[in-house]
């Protein structure tokens, strides 16, 4: 019997079984206890984190499943985003979803299991399966308000775009397999380099593979020009699911990108390899994402659309660190995603709470919120300022490291552009804060938050302040993940 080393996938197995248990429990108790099920889900995620701490480090299934620092780091982000998404969805479950509560939580957990498998994938097929397991539950979750046209439209749009991008990705992966003769990513790196040195004929096939894989993953990341689904889907989906899409699913795309490009196509990152390099293509896409995301966000009147365009811009900043292809580059991307988790999940949690109480998503309706709910307004201000990158919040440190990595790798033009667009982004983030604090009173607003949502908000604010003032532990952990790629 081959050595499967099943010990390493205990966290994933547990989370999967727990998802089945949640669905069965909800059905078995005739859907009487929405709160209990929510807390059970959160407990299951916390227990998975403990199991992850106990069982990690090593290789199983013949290198198909790697439990290395990179996987561990991103799994923490996935579990955190699922935890916060579940925590902020209690009111939605109580008010809007009557018949499918267990399934809602169960699907969130299934998607998280997919992300965890994806982060550990050491070869292309398990990577692809992880990606599918991540997105298929999200199609259903995006369309979860069955009677709401916008939600159903969001689900359908996401399904069509998701299927399309999977097909493109798979085609790109098949080309990579055809060129290298293996699906193992490390072997692929070696074989591609050898093939490039021995023959001069792999140019067009490799370029096609790079473009297709980039497009396939770009759709998942909502990277410009593959972003057009994001605003509509983000607006229509239930807000906690939007948050999960924008943090968890995006971090999954980032780790898939790292595994394929920084590991498998490492030799083809440099401009020396022109036109076979992916570094310059990604840098141009990052520039486009930052410009288009930030400028489109300026005109948005709906908070979810505004955050959608902001997340398009944020992935542009992440890509600045990615194209650096260095220790600092990989480490800063990990750190950025970790901080983005707190800031973005927090902002969406406030949007969820506001919508649960007022039924509105428009930025104008936030007017005067600071008078009736000072705490939540202050939290929202912290989340938005961190997204904009104002010191001493953690968003500043995250942007700083990413830009430093970009400068170090010689992408000065990209970093200057990123700085300019970051200034633009301050306008639309500050606009919400202006509404909450300086707009005339709107006495009808009174926000009631469930306990679980308060926990989510406090985790978000604490994370941003603590890691903003004292970034060392997370930064060192993130830099440690770069060891995986041999930097």
């Amino acid at each position, binding site marked *: 019997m081959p050595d499967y080393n099943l010990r390493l996938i205990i966290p994933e197995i547990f989370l999967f079984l727990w998802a*089945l248990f949640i669905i*069965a429990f909800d*059905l*078995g108790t005739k859907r009487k206890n929405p709160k209990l099920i929510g807390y059970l889900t959160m407990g299951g995620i916390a227990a998975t984190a403990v199991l992850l701490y106990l069982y990690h480090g090593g290789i199983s299934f013949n290198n198909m499943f790697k439990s290395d620092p990179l996987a561990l780091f991103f799994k923490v982000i996935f579990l955190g985003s699922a935890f916060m998404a579940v925590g902020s969805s209690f009111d939605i479950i109580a008010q809007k979803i009557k018949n499918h509560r267990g399934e809602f939580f169960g699907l969130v957990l299934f998607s998280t299991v997919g992300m965890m498998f994806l982060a550990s994938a050491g070869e292309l097929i398990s990577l692809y399966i992880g990606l599918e397991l991540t997105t298929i539950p999200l199609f259903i979750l995006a369309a979860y308000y069955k009677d709401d046209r916008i939600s159903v439209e969001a689900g359908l749009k996401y399904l069509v775009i998701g299927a399309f991008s999977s097909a493109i990705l798979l085609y790109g992966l098949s080309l990579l397999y055809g060129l290298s003769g293996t699906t193992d990513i490390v072997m692929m790196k070696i074989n591609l380099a050898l093939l490039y040195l021995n023959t001069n*004929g792999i140019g067009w096939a490799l370029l096609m593979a790079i473009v297709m894989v980039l497009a396939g993953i770009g759709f998942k990341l909502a990277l410009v020009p593959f972003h057009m689904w994001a605003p509509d889907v983000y607006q229509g989906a239930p807000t906690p699911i939007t948050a999960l899409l924008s943090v968890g699913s995006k971090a999954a795309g980032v780790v898939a990108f790292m595994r394929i490009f920084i590991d498998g196509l490492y030799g083809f990152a440099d401009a020396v390899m022109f036109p076979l390099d992916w570094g310059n293509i990604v840098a141009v896409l990052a520039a486009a994402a930052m410009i288009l995301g930030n400028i489109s966000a300026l005109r948005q009147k709906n908070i979810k659309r505004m955050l959608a365009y902001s997340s398009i811009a944020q992935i542009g900043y992440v890509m600045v660190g990615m194209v650096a292809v260095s220790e600092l580059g990989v480490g800063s991307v990990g750190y950025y995603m970790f901080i983005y988790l707190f800031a973005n999940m927090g902002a969406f949690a406030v949007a969820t709470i506001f919508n649960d109480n007022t039924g509105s998503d428009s930025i104008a309706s936030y007017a005067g919120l600071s008078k009736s709910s000072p705490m939540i307004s202050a939290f929202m201000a912290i989340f938005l300022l961190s997204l904009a990158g104002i010191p001493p919040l953690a968003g500043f440190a995250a942007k700083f490291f990413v830009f430093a990595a970009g400068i170090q790798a010689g992408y000065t033009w990209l970093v200057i552009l990123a700085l300019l667009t970051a200034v633009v982004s301050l306008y639309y983030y500050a606009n919400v804060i202006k509404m909450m604090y300086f707009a005339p009173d709107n006495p009808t607003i009174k926000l009631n938050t469930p306990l679980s949502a308060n926990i989510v908000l406090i985790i978000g604010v604490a994370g941003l302040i603590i890691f903003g003032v004292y970034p060392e532990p997370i930064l060192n952990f993130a830099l440690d993940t770069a060891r995986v790629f041999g930097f």
Partner: protein
Amino acid sequence: MDQYLSVLIFLLVGVGIVLFTFFIARLIRPHNPYKEKNQTYECAEAPVGNSWVKFNNHFYIFALIFVVFDVEAVFLFPWAVAFGQLGLFALVEMIIFIAILVFGLYYAWKKGVLKWV
């Protein structure tokens, strides 16, 4: 590029054969269309009404559950053939696989999907 040349030739020959057969068929077949022949083919019956009718939702769910167990059976056959060499490990693995599918059946049953109303 030499390796890819054979792929290109293969592609062209593949497309060519299809076009060639259509062409030959056009040359030798009789051409005699009449009203009944041009109707939509529906198991040799005369088609009645519009095809955009509403079906009972249950057909869809039954079909979906059927497909799950259909695929399970497909997996069971190669497993059964190779069972002699695989031993206990394969047995446990298949039990886990079936248990997950049975959970799906339990879920559908509990939700009352299997009841025909």
